[in-house]
């Protein structure tokens, strides 16, 4: 406020000095030439006022623009703290607020993810230990009673389905055998179910990953393959796991019909979920046109076990 007041006051003082010090006088009945002088003086003052105020308020406009476009899925967007004292303070407070929002979002997202994984584990255990046991019991009973094969096949199929869902909900292999084995099993199972040709290329010298990061890589691969089966109309899929710069990169590439740019950017549902998971572990996720058509999903996550 003081800055705007100072600008206006300076202009008024200058205009007053100009009137006092110059010989020009304004008479009660305004002459044409005097009118032109006044109009020019007024125009100069207005332009100067506009330019000075624009210079002063420009950082606020940038701040408003940033407030409109800031995306918490893309952390690190900050404004430089420069300009007048008030503006610098405003930008500084806004940047601090973004810091807090990003931290809060990361922590709440992590808590939500942990809760989701715990719930998945609980459901998977329930399916495996209870429903699975019941179905196994029914199958044994049917075999004992010598029922027809059709009924037994239906129960066997239900049992298989329960095991498959339990396995998808809780990737036990990830805990016991690690990421590479889990992804190998995931892609083998996917190829079997979808009939698509899958090419795996997993590097030998991958750096270790933290548990939650491994789980994110696994979930993104799982979601990508599911999306391919549902929407891509692909015939071939490539799953690659390679070392990056202090990171691990997962690439899932298909040769299907591609993806609409706006869908890739705005990422409803599955894509948005993958992006959120990537951000939670400090990673980056790109959904883009593959080199030879189709879609490439690229996830890069930081290496390290801490």
């Amino acid at each position, binding site marked *: 406020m003081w800055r705007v007041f100072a600008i206006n006051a300076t202009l008024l003082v200058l205009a007053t000095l100009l009137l006092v010090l110059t010989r020009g006088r304004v008479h009660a009945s305004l002459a044409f030439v005097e009118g032109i002088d006044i109009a020019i003086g007024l125009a100069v003052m207005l332009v100067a006022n506009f330019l000075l105020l624009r210079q002063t308020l420009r950082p606020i406009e940038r701040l408003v623009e940033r407030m409109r476009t800031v995306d918490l899925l893309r952390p690190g967007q*900050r*404004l*430089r703290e420069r300009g007048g004292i008030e503006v610098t303070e405003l930008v500084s407070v806004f940047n601090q607020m973004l810091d807090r929002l990003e931290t809060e979002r990361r922590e709440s997202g992590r808590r939500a993810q942990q809760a989701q994984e715990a719930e998945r584990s609980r459901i998977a255990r329930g399916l495996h230990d209870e429903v699975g046991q019941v179905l196994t019991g029914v199958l044994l009973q049917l075999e004992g009673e010598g029922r027809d094969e059709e009924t037994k096949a239906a129960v066997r199929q239900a049992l298989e389905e329960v095991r498959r869902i339990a396995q998808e909900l809780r990737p036990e292999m990830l805990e016991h055998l690690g990421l590479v084995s889990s992804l190998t099993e995931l892609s083998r199972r996917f190829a079997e179910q979808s009939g698509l040709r899958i090419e795996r290329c997993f590097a030998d010298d991958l750096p270790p990953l933290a548990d939650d990061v491994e789980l994110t890589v696994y979930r993104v691969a799982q979601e990508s393959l599911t999306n391919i089966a549902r929407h891509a109309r692909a015939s071939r899929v490539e799953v690659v796991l390679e070392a990056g*710069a202090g990171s691990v990169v997962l690439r899932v590439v298909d040769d299907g019909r591609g993806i609409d*740019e*706006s869908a890739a950017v705005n990422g409803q549902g599955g894509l948005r979920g993958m992006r959120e998971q990537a951000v939670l572990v400090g990673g980056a996720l790109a959904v883009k046109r593959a080199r030879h058509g189709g879609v490439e999903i690229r996830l890069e996550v930081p290496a390290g076990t801490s």
Partner: protein
Amino acid sequence: MGGTIVCDVTDPPAGQNAAEYAGALGARLDLRLVLVYVVSGVSAVSRESVTGRQDRSHAERTLDAIAREVGHEAETRVAAGEHAEALARVAAEEGADLVVVGARPAGVGGRKLSWTLARELEAATSVPVLLAPPSTRKRSDRRLAATVDTDTR
């Protein structure tokens, strides 16, 4: 590979020059290179319109041509939206370690550099931005002058 460079090639002379810099830097440091062309304006959102398809087709052709010139197995991407925002978004998605943008000569005799995009990027991304000056003579492999702004605020 040791990291990722995202390079803007949207404006032909400055972009091509930036791609040369980024390509040379990528080859020397063994970095992945992603060339980006940003389609802005109405056509960016109307993919189904003729203008939108033409713009995208032009963007893809330009990217392919520049990628061939640069070599170094450059990846390409067409992004839609406001220039700096779209570029920042791609940088975030690709996990970029550096964004390279071109500068145009400005002022009397072209002695100054116009780098509006770099200034806008400064607020849109925390990734360092490298400004590739316009080339005035043939660049040898040994000469690679660049300005790096690592200030993220």
